[in-house]
């Protein structure tokens, strides 16, 4: 840890603590989850980077979407994402969440995941190596440092559009909106 880092720690302790203790929700989507067990265990050991898997969304602030997203999975992803505490960061892993990948003309696969929830970073590839997760984590550190990982703020501000897109894909949603969707002026936020 250099002096520059110490200065940062005193200046913004909460942000630095967030940055170095990313808790990833252990949510399995598609085939990319096969890369996650070696990442969190002894061979690549994600704890070196402060990334640790947790069991429930209420303890997590990093969401790895590890593969293609079917319509049914999208429902679970939205519910999980909305339960996570802010600040929360999302990383799409593999080419399928980006634009559908090899499922580009599938009848039941979501093509662009960022139409439904905000994504802070993408890892391209099919499959990406486990090292790509660490590159993504380091990029995410840079983004957090520069206050650019603002997906959760974008979700809050554009919630109406996100909710409309979710309803277009899934039909009627059985859970209430997370943020107010009416046109009234918003209250004191942030």
């Amino acid at each position, binding site marked *: 840890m250099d002096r520059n880092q110490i200065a940062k720690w005193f200046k913004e302790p909460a942000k630095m603590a967030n940055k170095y203790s990313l808790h990833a929700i252990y949510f399995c989507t598609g085939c990319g989850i096969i890369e996650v067990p070696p990442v969190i265990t002894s061979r690549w050991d994600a704890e070196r980077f402060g990334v640790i898997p947790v069991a429930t969304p209420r303890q997590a602030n990093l969401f790895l979407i590890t593969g293609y997203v079917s*319509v*049914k999975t999208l*429902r679970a992803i939205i519910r999980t994402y909305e339960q996570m505490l802010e600040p929360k960061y999302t990383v799409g892993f593999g080419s399928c969440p980006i634009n559908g990948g090899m499922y580009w003309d599938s009848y039941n696969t979501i093509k662009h995941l960022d139409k439904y929830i905000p994504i802070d970073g993408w890892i391209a590839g099919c499959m990406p190596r486990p090292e790509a997760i660490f590159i993504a984590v380091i990029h995410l550190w840079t983004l957090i440092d520069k206050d650019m990982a603002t997906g959760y703020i974008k979700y809050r501000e554009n919630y109406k559009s996100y909710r409309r897109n979710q309803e277009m894909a899934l039909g009627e949603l059985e859970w209430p909106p997370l943020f107010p969707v009416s046109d009234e002026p918003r209250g004191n936020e942030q």
Partner: protein
Amino acid sequence: MNKSVKEKLESTFKDIQVSILEDSRIAVTAENHSVLTILRFLKDDGFNHLALLSAVDWIEDNVFELCFILTSYQRDDDEYSDSQRLHIILKTTIPREKPDFQTITAIFPIAEPYEREIHELFGIKFEGHPRLTPLLLEREYEIPPFRKDFDTRKYVKDVFDKIPFVEDKDE
């Protein structure tokens, strides 16, 4: 061993074609009204494991083909071993205009999820099935999506590509 099964099948049923594909594989083609009888006969003969029930859409011939794959996990007359295990592929066709078939859950209860899946993806009705409710899909489809005349590209263009990207308000 497969010779004896072939002879037994041919002597019992009239309108079937039996062909030996490999040492341990037999293909049987039958009319759709005699399928249940053949299945019951084979189950009594020791083929008590339904490994797979699947459907194929032959759109040029205007038929759906149903494939029942049966194996003998444990036969009484020989010891269990992989080399001796027989696979029987029972095929039958049903017309595309009237895709109805009898359920086989009375003979093989494990066929229930397979029949639900085929009902959902191919639109084949299985009469007598206890619950033909949706199994995998979330959305409603006009044509069941595994039929050959279902245009996936057009469906994607009409549904998923129409959903707009979320623009940031500041920009």
